[in-house]
């Protein structure tokens, strides 16, 4: 199977090379057969990558301990579930996984548009093949996951040998989220390749108008959604597994995942300027280019150890390939831009400071400033070494100082932007749209202040959250009221109807609402508390309104590890509330241990209990307990963001207001008439 897999990878490389060269030839000659063969080579590349990935998965499941990668990341007793995660737990496998996910996207794109956009697709195909060639080069020639173990045999020639068992998967990854977090994040990273390929293709082809934006909007949304989920799942993993009570530490690898998210978010907003007003064309193209390059940079940071991080792999030469690729991508983008920049001429100018355009402009500006701050903070050690000779790093205070005000500004714009009119907003409409929310926000501020929240940023954050929620609520309310007055349906049904009529607009509001919930959760971080105490059975620990009583310990041998649990009874208001079992796990195969945090999570706060080990002198077990307010809102917000994104991806149920003059379908025709015959028009708000 290892030979089969590596052969498939090699063939995939050849097919990608053909798709690239043949594609360029097809663009030059415009020969229909050549265009077709290049496209089919692209599809074959993807198929072969699927086969190779399947082979590696098979090798894990069949416990093939003659393959070096399988030995390093699996063992016989490893749960089946985690044998899938083992696929991306090391360098070689995760690079193959990159290729795999990219292939899923490329395959879908080539198939969906096989008979459409004939002028543009050959260009897109060439760009996609170019990216695939890079990753397949790594998979084949630099970090092959199919290397086998061998030792010199009797006659001096190398012979393959098999180990009895593997080294096992590291404990930190043996956690359910580690099975879903990397695929999500990687799907985000790889997904941005699609809008990149379309943008670069359209620029090279001088493809008329804004069509590439329409074509890629859904793909961008999908990639963005995966990226968002990936970041949040990573944060949740850090929270639930690492046992330090936090979810975000401004670690270089965390930052790397945030960077393309920031520019991707900016792009999703600024394309609307181009669709509506024909503005910011250069900006948009460069935003997509930047987002893609940041995705590559993210992979580079994770894989190379350029910046030391808890996540980074051992220093490896793979970084050089990525840097080379990044430079090449930049050069191609730059040349394409310089040669075709007249094609990106703006059609309009900004009219007023208080307009939709300016809110988008400021939204983009601060997202970009945030991106630059995070990027420079992350790469500071590298740059300071180049320029001054000493390696200097910056920590959380740097990132927080810049990003907290940016976050609040963005939150403010989230509430204001969507309600401003294009071109210019009248004072009258400002009063109508923002009077209520402003009052609600201020009132909420007074209440929250009276309740004891005196921390400045948290207070501002909560005020803004209420303000934004009210603006969004009013939008739904106004729309639903109009529908209700016409149809007489219930309010809930009218709201659903409203949302489905313009999924893009109202789905966007739902995403915004999710972001508000996330900000509520972030505001809680200012009030985190923690207590650490040596605990004998029978002793208690007080944190906030909770009393923790240590009842005892138990120990259990599982298949792959031995677990040692604390049995902790939680009391509140002098009444027993529940039991918690913070746990330590010892993995025999690689002699490592891991923590399992016990969390009692409510909307109000998380009680987070860690079995922190033994006191070094007395050998008494130590409990580290945290009380983290509002954390749950972050995860809930994430769910709402995903839901909202799914809504925006749905087609509008019926055209907005266009149907008024259309003849009523007879009841017999209705089932067919509803879906396909109605022109599906996207709302662009």
């Amino acid at each position, binding site marked *: 199977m290892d030979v089969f897999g590596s052969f498939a990878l090699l063939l995939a490389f050849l097919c990608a090379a053909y798709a690239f060269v043949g594609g360029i030839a097809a663009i030059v000659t415009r020969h229909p057969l050549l265009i077709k063969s290049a496209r089919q080579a692209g599809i074959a590349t993807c198929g072969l990558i699927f086969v190779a990935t399947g082979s590696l998965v098979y090798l894990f499941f069949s416990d093939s301990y003659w393959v070096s990668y399988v030995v390093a990341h699996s063992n016989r007793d490893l749960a089946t579930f985690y044998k899938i995660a083992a696929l991306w737990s090391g360098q070689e496998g995760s690079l193959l996984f990159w290729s795999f996910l990219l292939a899923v996207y490329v395959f879908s794109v080539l198939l969906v548009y096989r008979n459409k956009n004939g002028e543009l697709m050959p260009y897109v195909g060439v760009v996609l093949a170019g990216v695939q060639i890079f990753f397949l080069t790594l998979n084949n020639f630099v970090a092959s996951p199919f290397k*086998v*173990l*061998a030792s010199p045999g009797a006659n001096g020639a190398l012979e393959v040998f098999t180990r009895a068992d593997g080294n096992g998967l590291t404990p930190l990854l043996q956690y359910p989220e580690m099975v879903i977090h990397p695929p999500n994040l990687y799907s985000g990273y790889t997904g941005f390749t699609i809008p990149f390929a379309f943008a670069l293709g359209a620029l090279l082809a001088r493809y008329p108008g804004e069509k590439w934006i329409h074509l890629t909007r859904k793909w961008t949304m999908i990639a963005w959604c995966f990226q968002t989920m990936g970041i949040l799942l990573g944060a949740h993993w850090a929270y639930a597994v690492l046992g330090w009570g936090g979810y975000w530490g401004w670690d270089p690898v965390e930052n790397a995942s945030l960077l393309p998210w920031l520019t991707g978010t900016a792009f999703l907003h600024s394309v609307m300027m181009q669709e509506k007003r024909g503005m910011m064309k250069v900006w948009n193209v460069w935003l997509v280019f930047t987002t893609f390059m940041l995705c590559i940079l993210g992979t580079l940071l994770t894989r190379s150890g350029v910046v030391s991080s*808890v996540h980074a792999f051992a220093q490896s030469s793979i970084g050089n390939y990525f840097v080379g690729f990044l430079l090449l991508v930049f050069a191609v983008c730059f040349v394409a831009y310089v040669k075709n920049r007249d094609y990106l001429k703006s059609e309009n100018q900004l009219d007023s*400071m208080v307009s939709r355009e300016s809110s988008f402009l*400021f939204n983009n500006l601060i997202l970009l400033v945030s991106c630059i701050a995070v990027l420079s903070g992350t790469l500071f050690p590298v740059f300071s070494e180049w320029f001054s000779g*000493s390696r200097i790093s910056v920590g959380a205070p740097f990132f927080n100082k810049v990003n907290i005000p940016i976050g609040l500004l963005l939150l403010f714009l989230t509430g204001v932007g969507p309600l401003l009119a294009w071109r210019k907003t009248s004072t009258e409409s400002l009063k109508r749209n923002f009077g209520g929310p402003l009052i609600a926000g201020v009132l909420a501020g007074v209440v929250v202040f009276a309740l004891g929240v005196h921390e400045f940023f948290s207070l501002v954050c909560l005020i803004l959250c209420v303000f934004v929620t009210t603006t969004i609520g009013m939008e739904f309310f106004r729309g639903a009221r109009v529908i209700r007055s016409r149809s007489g349906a219930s309010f809930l049904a009218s709201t659903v109807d409203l949302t489905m009529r313009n999924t893009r607009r109202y789905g966007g509001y739902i995403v915004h609402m999710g972001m508000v919930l996330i900000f509520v959760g972030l505001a809680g971080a200012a009030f985190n508390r923690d207590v*650490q105490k040596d605990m004998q059975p029978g002793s208690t620990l007080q944190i906030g309104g909770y009393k923790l009583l240590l009842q005892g310990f138990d120990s259990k041998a599982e298949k792959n590890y031995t677990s040692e649990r604390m049995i902790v009874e939680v009391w509140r208001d002098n009444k027993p509330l529940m039991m918690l079992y913070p746990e330590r796990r010892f993995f025999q195969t690689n002699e490592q241990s891991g923590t399992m945090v016990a969390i009692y999570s409510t909307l109000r706060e998380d009680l987070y209990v860690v079995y922190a080990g033994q006191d070094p002198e007395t050998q008494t077990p130590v409990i580290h307990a945290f009380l983290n307010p509002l954390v749950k809102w972050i995860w809930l917000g994430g769910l709402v963001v995903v839901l909202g994104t799914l809504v925006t991806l749905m087609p509008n149920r019926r055209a907005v207001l266009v149907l008024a003059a259309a003849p009523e379908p007879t009841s017999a025709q209705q089932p067919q008439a509803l879906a396909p015959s109605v022109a599906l028009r996207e709302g662009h708000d």
Partner: protein
Amino acid sequence: MQKQAKFGIGIGIIVVSLGFLAWLGYGESKTYYHTIAELQTLHGKERAHRIRVGGTVERGTIKRFTGRVDFVLDGEGKQLPVTYVGTEPLPDTFVDKSQALVEGSLATNGSFVAEHVQAKCASKYEAAPGGDAKPGSAKASTM
């Protein structure tokens, strides 16, 4: 043109104030990376910086006391005695011969007072190729 100027001023204010905040944060959190050998050559103001230094934990030197943990870091043939005084429990990966990164400052006697200790994250710990670490497979090599 006047509109453009207004936008320019707006953008300027935002960028300058965020830049100022960044500068504040930089001053507050900048940390110098040094090797153990370099530490002995630092002078004057340099010794007062926040410093981050990496090395291998010397076998058998981890001594745990109430409120602090002492150990010795090795690097480039030099030793650095470290006292960890942070509140967070040391990571599970912090053991003899593990690679650790400590952050803190130099004490006057040349030892290092650490507030944070990071041990190389096991998730990305690349075992020697083929897992040579395990007994009985010392001859293993990869093709």
